[in-house]
């Protein structure tokens, strides 16, 4: 899987028209200077030998040197990774905190007003561009109410957490509508199960049934769903970082794209894709751990 992702990134980037050397040196560079730079970066060798070198570098975690910054890609990624990881973490937390109560409410009041409202909201949310939702949040909470910062990283631990609340909320909304819809269906299935009927027949209160029997069984589907949607969430952070001027991998990716910084774009794409694969693996393992019925094949 990781190898496939790496090969795809390599192929995609070498399909690019235009020469990165010319891009860095500018319009008026002499052909000799362009050729020299191409040689230094190894871009004048055959595609096959470039790929062999690329795989060798990957294994040893050498992702090359940024064309623009002139320092190693891996150290630049290391500098920006924490911000993105924090954003993904907070967004996931928000997603769970919003999804579980809404889906529970909708499933327990099936086809009644609360259910209709939740379903309506999730349909609305599906068509909502994340960047626009972020701007609306800035408008309300930062500009009108002045409760939270407009953007940037903030200072100190609390300032930093504060600065991630709106971005986290924005990023979580990229997946909340999907999560709510799926979890609601999942919970309806659990509600129809024999053991729920048995619990009710034993005279347990409705709240107790919901919290103890239904919610417990909904944890694993939620986890699996989160794993499946984490790729989309990670992709959305690229946009959210841009809206809120956060200095994470997404901002770095976009600025590297506009300066055609190949090794940088390649490195970030790889790191993001591989971390998604690893997160998926981790959620699968965790689900297997929590649910004795799942066997890892």
């Amino acid at each position: 899987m990781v190898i496939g992702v790496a090969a795809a990134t390599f192929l995609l980037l070498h399909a690019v028209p235009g020469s990165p050397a010319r891009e860095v040196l500018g319009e008026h560079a002499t052909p000799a200077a362009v050729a020299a730079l191409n040689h230094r970066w190894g871009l004048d060798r055959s595609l096959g030998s470039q790929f062999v070198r690329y795989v060798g570098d990957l294994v040893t975690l050498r992702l090359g040197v940024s064309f623009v910054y002139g320092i190693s890609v891996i150290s630049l990624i290391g500098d920006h990774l924490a911000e993105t990881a924090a954003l993904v973490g907070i967004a996931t937390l928000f997603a769970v905190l919003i999804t579980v109560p809404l889906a529970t409410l909708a499933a327990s009041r099936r086809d009644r007003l609360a259910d209709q409202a939740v379903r309506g909201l999730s349909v609305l949310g599906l068509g909502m561009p994340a960047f626009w939702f972020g701007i609306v949040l800035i408008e309300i909470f930062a500009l009108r109410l002045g409760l939270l910062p407009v953007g940037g990283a903030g200072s100190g631990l609390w300032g930093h957490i504060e600065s991630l609340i709106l971005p986290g909320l924005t990023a979580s909304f990229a997946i909340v509508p999907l999560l709510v819809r799926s979890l609601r269906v999942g919970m309806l299935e659990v509600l129809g199960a024999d053991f729920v009927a048995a619990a009710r027949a034993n005279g347990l209160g409705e709240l107790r049934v919901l919290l103890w029997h239904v919610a417990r069984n909904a944890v694993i589907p939620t986890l699996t769903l989160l794993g499946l949607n984490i790729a989309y969430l990670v992709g959305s952070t690229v946009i959210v970082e841009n809206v809120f001027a956060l200095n994470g991998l997404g901002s770095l990716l976009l600025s590297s794209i506009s300066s055609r910084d190949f090794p940088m774009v390649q490195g970030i794409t790889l790191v993001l894709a591989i971390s998604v694969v690893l997160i998926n693996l981790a959620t699968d393992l965790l689900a297997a751990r929590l649910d004795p019925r799942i066997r890892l094949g």
Partner: protein
Amino acid sequence: MTTATLGTGALRRRRRLSLHALRRFPALTAGLTLLFVIVMAVILAPVISPYSPNQQNLFHILAGPSWAHPLGTDQLGRDELSRLLWAGRTDLRVGALAVIFPFCFGTLVGTLAGYYGGWVDSLVMRVVDVLIAFPFYVLVIGLVFIVGTGTRGIYIAFAVADWVVYARTVRATTLIVRESEYVAAAKVGGLSDVRILAGHVLPNTISQAIVYIMSDIVLVIVAVVTLSYLGLGVQPPTPDWGTMVSDGQEFLTTDWALATLPGIAVVLVGLSLSLVGDGLADLLRPE
């Protein structure tokens, strides 16, 4: 026998799409109505929009709503309502065109992989797995970077990135249909693979892809608008909702409507398409 069952199925479906059915599925009706209004509005944009979308009036910038400009004007004095309508024309057209190739290619590949199995299937699923592993926006932004910004870049990026979900959905249904009795009967009857695929497998798997295309168009339109917001999609001066939001973002403190209205337009389009998609899914669900 096979043709007989298929025949009644098609007949029943046609009857259920009648006016009576529309009343039975209020979500579908609401979605179709909203979609119709939006599509008509953007098709008729040249007729109904009061101004040309790029007509500037520098003496009348950032104005609030008035009789002359119902939704006010932007930072260059362009009429906001006219721009919204023309931008819808761009975004809806690009979104609708961008899903055609993924829909056709994904459905075809998914059907073939599911029907034949073996190494074709393994190869296709391997490619699908790799493409799905990429965060969607990272992949699309990377592809646009490679093929160049603008609408052409968008079409190519979605052609590469977006077919995988169709392939996966259709393959899963094909695996079930392949084992069904009517396909076995058709095989025993000596029909060629092409006739079985076209006559018996596709009609039963395509409804899944059609239901999915509704939510996919929403996803793609949102992505087109997002790319344009980042400056990677539709290029100015062509009006588009994403560029309008990023232009309006600068004036958030004084003129909140400029950045807000285009987003509401996107949400309305998404709402109408999602309602139609959900309604179709209900309609096509076997009883």
